[in-house]
């Protein structure tokens, strides 16, 4: 069948991408004298890691805003829930007192990594297995917690339409941020202080007992998790349920009249989107190596919304492409605008700290003004033309 063929191609595409990421990450160790870009400390890898994390969140937001037509701005709130759940459940038990020193230890005395460590051992290969399993379980739970909260607030909130839904979800995210900084909840959330010490991306690097890195996997891990999650979202979008979501976006009244239970499907989309936002939040915590409520501001939601709009509302590949471009611009390519530059004795005007944001904002305004459909509109990048032999038009028609 054509569809399964396509899925196999997508699967191999992702596999090749992941292998390429591993290669890219480790190439500097094998071939000395490569440009600085390939150095593990170069901004390239920061960008790749952050973009991998953000693209998952952007795609999950697109599922809700672009494919179901629910204008929700609660993404940062669900990320926060995911980040905290992951962090609380994976901080090693012996670190807990140190992290929670202001509150006399954590309310959750255990850590998933340690629990698995009891089974598989905490050193060597056993330690690696227990860390992977512990992190995986914590990450899935992070998604579940975010999804569960989405389910709870979905009851009142999903009865609202468009702008009102946006305001309600935004408010929810802000309330969460305030609650998580509440000192009374200190034994759980560590109050306004950050939680740290849990496994991050670099914990997944394979190291020799001496501490020297044998194989870097710190960029590979976010890519792997994001790929799996995005794949699931794409499968959902292309399924019967995905089509039902799109019908709700196009015309709610017609969808309902054709037997699609509006509330159930909106809730489904909201919970699934939040589930992946939660996993995205866990990844974000791993990326910045701490969990802190202060980081999950509404600005973060806007940033992701911007990415979705730039990429094209209703296009998964557009969201991913836009994330990489956006993150690369903000973290790397436009950095030179922030430092003063002399050519000979001539000082290039305007270049100074903060100028990057000016240029960046103008670029975004231009995109929004002149490409209101975003980079991809609602189309998807299609690589199938690269692999396929040309088939006569007649055959192609029958194929579909």
């Amino acid at each position, binding site marked *: 069948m054509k569809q399964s063929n396509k899925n196999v191609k997508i699967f191999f595409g992702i596999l090749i991408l992941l292998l390429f990421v591993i290669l890219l990450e480790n190439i500097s160790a094998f071939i000395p004298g490569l440009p600085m870009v390939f150095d593990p400390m170069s901004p390239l890898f920061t960008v790749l890691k952050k973009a991998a994390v953000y693209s998952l969140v952007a795609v999950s937001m697109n599922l809700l805003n672009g494919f179901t037509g629910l204008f929700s701005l609660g993404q940062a709130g669900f990320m926060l829930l995911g980040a905290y759940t992951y962090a609380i459940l994976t901080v090693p038990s012996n670190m807990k007192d140190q992290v929670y020193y202001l509150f006399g230890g954590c309310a959750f005395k255990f850590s998933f990594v340690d629990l698995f460590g009891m089974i598989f051992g905490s050193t060597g290969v056993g330690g690696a297995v227990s860390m992977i399993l512990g992190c995986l379980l914590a990450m899935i739970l992070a998604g579940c917690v975010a999804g569960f909260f989405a389910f709870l607030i979905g009851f009142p909130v999903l009865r609202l339409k468009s702008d009102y839904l946006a305001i309600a979800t935004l408010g929810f995210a802000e309330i969460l941020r305030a609650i998580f900084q509440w000192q009374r909840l200190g034994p759980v959330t560590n109050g306004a202080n950050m939680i740290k010490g849990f496994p991050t991306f670099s914990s997944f690097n394979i190291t020799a007992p001496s501490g020297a890195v044998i194989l870097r996997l710190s960029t590979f891990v976010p890519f792997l998790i994001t790929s799996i999650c995005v794949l*699931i979202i794409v*499968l*959902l979008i292309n*399924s*019967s*349920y995905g*089509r*039902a979501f*799109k*019908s709700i*976006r*196009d*015309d709610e*009244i*017609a*969808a*309902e*009249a*054709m*037997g*699609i*239970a*509006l509330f159930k499907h909106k809730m*489904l989309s909201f919970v*699934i989107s939040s589930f992946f936002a939660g996993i995205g939040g866990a990844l974000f915590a791993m990326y910045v190596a701490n969990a802190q409520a202060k980081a999950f501001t509404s600005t973060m939601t806007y940033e992701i919304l911007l990415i979705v709009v730039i990429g094209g509302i*209703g296009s998964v590949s557009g969201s991913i492409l836009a994330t990489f471009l956006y993150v690369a611009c903000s973290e790397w390519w436009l950095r030179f605008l922030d430092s003063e530059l002399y050519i000979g004795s001539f000082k290039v005007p305007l270049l100074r700290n903060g100028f990057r944001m000016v240029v960046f904002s103008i670029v975004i305004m231009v995109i929004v003004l002149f490409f209101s459909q975003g980079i991809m509109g*609602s189309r998807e990048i299609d690589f199938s033309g690269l692999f396929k032999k040309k088939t006569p038009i007649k055959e192609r028609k029958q194929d*579909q």
Partner: protein
Amino acid sequence: MEKTAETLALHIENVTMQFGGVVSVNDLTLDVPQNKIIALIGPNGAGKTTAFNCITGVYQPTNGLIEFMGKPIVRNHPSGRTLKTYKGENAGKYAGESVLSPTPDEITALGIARTFQNIRLWKSMTVFENVLIAKHMRADQNVFSAIFRGNAAEEKRMRDETMELLREQGLDAYKDELATSLPYGLQRRLEIARALATDPKLLLLDEPAAGMNPQETLELADFVREIRDKYKLTVFLIEHHMDLVMNISDYIYVIDFGSEIARGVPEEIQSNERVIEAYLGVSEAE
């Protein structure tokens, strides 16, 4: 005509729909027997579409009962504040009974499908997808089986049935076109095809001939009869086109200002003075 309980597809009893102080539908009582084509006509603003919206669950009627295939599906009575402002009749008739107010999708699941006066196709989707989505409701699947393709057989069945339906409706040549790129007449036909995809027993058509030329209208009449016979449907339609209504209806109800003013077979309606008055206005000399 016979009106025993077994043969009725739809039975509407004392349905009143009041918006604030405006009574859109007033004490409407009518019967739609199975496998017949019944028309509801009336001048603009008579409350025809409101009546449809009450049947399909878009509105909850203020008072009255609607039965489908002999089972009550919608029932309401005015209470509290509504009762104080209620202007209709039979306010107490259903007072003791439970309120039934299903949502539109529940009504569709029971087997009542509809089309819209101003075509409501899903604009960003192809002809094929438009019909395929209508199959979603009856598919045996859940979200996990759908994501991980455990419903492959079900999905294939949905696609095959959709293709079959499009072929029967003569739309298969356009299946990959955007629904909105079709000519107007075909968009109407696609909307009916989409409604048929939900496996209805009763089809409600809201002004199916609106915007059609005489030739298309004539074809539509044959088409409606054809689908009635083929899918063993009951058709209940709202229409302005007198030619079409007189041509295809087995029985006609006429309403004006929300209330019934006449009922009968086409010949009776054509010569009914109140109907002519309602449509052409009363001359001042009389």
